[in-house]
């Protein structure tokens, strides 16, 4: 039983150590701003299409599915409220994070993993740079800035998706009604929750991606394994964390 637990506990300990070094690194010099902006471009601009698409369709689908239930009560006009709350609180942050986990946590794991197995990480240390500062920190900073922005965008596009469905497919709903109910439904705590979540997800996504990349062993096969693990672990953490954060906000 103890043997069985040893590996995951050790992995978690190493993850915490890396996280501690990276977080301490955030306030220490040196800063490699070039790398930060490159990563922002890669993660932010690069994820735009996929984030916009998922945002749009998740909003549209919400409106479509909820309209059936609302019809029973003759309350189709309230569809804007439902779309707004689910998108801003849950679907926007979680779906965006899952997309970025699939695109970028995997990308970080495979990039750093390839560097690890070809001795580039060792070379980096031998030639005077700390890989945590040069590789992990820029990815952490870039994701932390970019993921909340992507989430806001996904939320907005999702609302537009819901709006189109409400106007075109649902009877008894006007555009003005849709936006009106959506606007009134949102409180400040929804916005706070909707922005806090992507920020925390960003930290987890980037650190998990870098962590699995940096501990890669065993050649190309190892790189593939690290990539898969990074995506799986990052995605699981996203859904677990969204529950925990949601629980805290609900009880407040």
């Amino acid at each position, binding site marked *: 039983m103890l043997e069985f637990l040893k590996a995951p506990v050790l992995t978690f300990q190493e993850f915490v150590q890396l996280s501690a070094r990276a977080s301490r690194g955030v306030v220490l010099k040196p800063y490699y701003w070039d790398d930060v902006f490159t990563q922002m471009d890669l993660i932010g601009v690069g994820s735009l299409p996929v984030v916009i698409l998922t945002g749009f369709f998740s909003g549209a689908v919400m409106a479509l599915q909820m309209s059936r239930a609302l019809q029973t009560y003759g309350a189709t006009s309230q569809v804007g409220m439902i779309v707004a709350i689910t998108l801003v609180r849950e679907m926007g942050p979680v779906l965006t994070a899952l997309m970025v986990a699939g695109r970028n946590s995997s990308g970080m794991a495979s990039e750093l993993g390839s560097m690890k197995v070809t001795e580039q990480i*060792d070379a980096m240390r031998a030639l*005077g740079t700390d890989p945590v500062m040069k590789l992990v920190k820029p990815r952490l900073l870039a994701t932390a800035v970019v993921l909340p922005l992507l989430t806001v965008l996904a939320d907005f596009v999702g609302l537009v998706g819901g709006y189109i469905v409400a106007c075109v497919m649902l009877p008894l709903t006007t555009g003005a009604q849709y936006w009106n109910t959506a606007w009134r439904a949102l409180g400040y705590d929804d916005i706070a929750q909707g922005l806090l979540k992507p920020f925390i997800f960003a930290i987890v996504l980037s650190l998990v991606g870098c962590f699995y990349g940096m501990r890669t062993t065993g050649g190309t096969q190892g790189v593939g394994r690290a990539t898969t693990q990074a995506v799986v672990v990052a995605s699981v953490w996203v859904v677990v964390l969204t529950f925990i954060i949601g629980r805290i906000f609900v009880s407040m």
Partner: protein
Amino acid sequence: MSNPQEEPILIFDDVSFGFDDNVFLRQVSFELRRGETLIIHGAAGSGKTLLLKLALGLLPATSGRIHLFGQDVTRLPEREWFDVRSRIGVLFQEGGLFDSFTIEENVGYPLLNQRLLKIPEEQVQPKVEQSLDFVELGHTLEKFPSELSGGMRRRVGIARAIVTQPELLLYDSPTAGLDPITANNIIALIVKGRDVRGATTVIVTHRHQDGEILERYRYNEKDGGLRPVGSNGDSTRTRYMVMKEGAIAFLGASFDFDCCKDPYVAKFASR
């Protein structure tokens, strides 16, 4: 004042690495003095690369003590290691070139990043070119490592190792997987790198000829080739080390090396 030639650059004192059943390095002790050449032979997995990684502080020793440049570095925190590493040049087994950087950026990397060096930015470019000319690859500045052949990549690795003019040079299998002609060229470059600046050199290799060239030849500044070591008391002060299963099986001069009776050691000596 002690003779600077007698000053030990690298000391391993009873160093081990590994835990419980997995011991990869057992009680390794040796001293390397300034200007000496150390040639390390050994079967695959005998701990040669590990030895270099410990000397660079890329891995911490489990027990024993390591001294570099007169400083005890056994428990040195990572941040302070960077100062020590800026005095060491290293060529990794696979070259360790950054494949997303050009050759110029690769060779310039230690100049721009080694904190202790503080090279003004306008001096980086000439130094990079000088170092690449040294390995006769001055025309490859804008290329990427993937565009070069294996031997050329190894030479870029050497250029990157010597660009900071380090006092200690570590080469991990510089000739592995190369054809004999390219391999001899690489070794000639290593001799040149050693003799032009008088750097202390550690080299891990599978080929007996590599050690022989390093021991018996010096770089000839007049014609740019190699010349046999003169008889006027000049010596490359070369020693041989043979590793076996993480321990030192042999350490000594070439005469003892060639005469060693141990069948494992004899496999690496010329006969």
